[in-house]
């Protein structure tokens, strides 16, 4: 049940994931919280905007990010405020202007998508291709590759997350141990998985 508002959210809020992520990375010292912070910021913006859609969505997004970080800092969830960067917004716009991928035309977007796709581990990449490009149903993908339906589902879910990270963010925010291995050592890690 996609709504107009959901479309608006994707277009006006999620489109700024890259500068938002960079902002969090600069301002918040605890890298294992970046993912959680980002999700909570999105949730807050979603709730607030559902009542009253902001006229300047991007500024609203960054203001929400700043408020949330201030709240969390105040609630003592960080031990020291010292290493935290500057919450000021002055740099944020610059950041976005340096990376205007989203608006650089369809060819550029296609290039980015190709990059995201090429970064997937081998088997995951194959599964995504067969499902999304050749449009084989999931069970035919399983048959073609000689793997179980469950495994196809796992690869698709993983592909979806990795591609989302790359398309929206440009940098994966997967910093816990498991994901760090997956993203830095993708192919080796995957070879082991495939051998199973």
């Amino acid at each position, binding site marked *: 049940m996609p709504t107009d508002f959901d479309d608006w959210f994707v277009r006006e809020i999620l489109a700024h994931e890259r500068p938002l992520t960079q902002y969090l990375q600069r301002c918040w010292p605890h890298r294992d919280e970046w993912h959680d912070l980002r999700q909570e910021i999105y*949730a807050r913006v979603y709730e607030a905007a559902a009542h009253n859609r902001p006229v300047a969505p991007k500024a609203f997004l960054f203001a929400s990010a700043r408020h949330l970080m201030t709240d969390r800092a105040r609630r003592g969830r960080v031990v020291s405020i010292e290493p935290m960067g500057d919450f000021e917004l002055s740099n944020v716009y610059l950041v976005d202007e340096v990376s205007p991928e989203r608006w650089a*035309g369809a060819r550029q977007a296609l290039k980015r998508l190709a990059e995201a*796709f090429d970064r997937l581990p081998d088997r995951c990449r194959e599964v995504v291709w067969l499902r999304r490009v*050749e449009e084989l149903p999931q069970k035919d993908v399983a048959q073609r590759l000689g793997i179980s339906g469950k495994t196809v589902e796992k690869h698709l879910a993983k592909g979806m997350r990795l591609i989302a990270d790359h398309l*929206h963010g440009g940098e994966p925010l997967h910093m816990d141990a498991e994901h760090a291995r997956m993203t830095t050592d993708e192919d080796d890690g995957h070879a082991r998985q495939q051998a199973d």
Partner: protein
Amino acid sequence: MHDSRQIEQAAAEWLVRRDRGDWSARDQQALDDWLRAASRHRVEFLRLQAAWQETGRLQALAAGLPAGAVPPRQAWSLGLPVARMAHARSDAATHVARARGWRHALAASAALAVVGSAIWIGWQLTGRNEASYASGVGQLETVTLADGSTATFSSDSRARVRMSRGERDVELLQGEAYFDVAHDAGRPFVVTADGRRVIAVGTRFSVRRDPQEVRVVVTEGKVRLDSPPGADGRATPVSLLPAGSVASAGRNGVLVRSLPVAEAERYLEWRSGFLTFDDTSLATAAAEFNRFNARKLELADAGVAELRVGGNFRWANVDSFVKLLELGFPVRAERLADRIVLHSR
């Protein structure tokens, strides 16, 4: 602390389950409940869904690639002609393609002898097939190309066709042509018109070349439209056109309209002898008639050019079109030997 990742994983699993093909109303209900349970669920779902939808555009990269094989990494020739990639085929495939090519070449010669009306300028069998086609004003020509595809040329159109082992190239020099492309995943079918490249594997579409724009109408399958960089050197977008697309590529970029296929087919009614107008300016309608007739329609003033007309008309029968105009509109026709001039009344 790591709830956010669990939510991301759960959202991905929902999307995958919905994609599985056995989605029921109860599943939808369960998903709706999950989405309503927390805004975090909803935003993560939207985030992954948006990216997942975007991956559908990978199909634009697949145009011209053999089906059934996942291309190697970095094989994308985003700036280069896709046709180049076809060279990666195995030798066995080359042999098959060549044998098929020759068989079709023979079939095509036979077809041409029967059709007879196609003006056949040249056919050189020197390792590759090359042929030129032209149709006269008011003539439609349907020809079978060397690969088994058929091309229907509209009035006053010219094209040069080159078939080689790796490529099928059609250069549309003038006018409009409709293609029913024989499926051959190893050999992309590429139509070039005024610097634009329209790339297909097996599909039906037309390409029309006008002084100001190139128009592509797709009625089956998918084609990819590549444009040369603009005057400012900036790359122009690649468009993937599914069936029902009507794309107009002009100096200011590419405008794509997505129509129901039946409606898109109305742009191709010329093949059965008709022109279809729907709230079309008389200026445009007259230009359409003029593509098909040696006796041209001329508009004497702006008032008459702006009249809106609609309906189906036989393009060969410009006289009855003019009579209908005189009956239904404030138009006076001045009938000269070589043209008909329309005036406001």
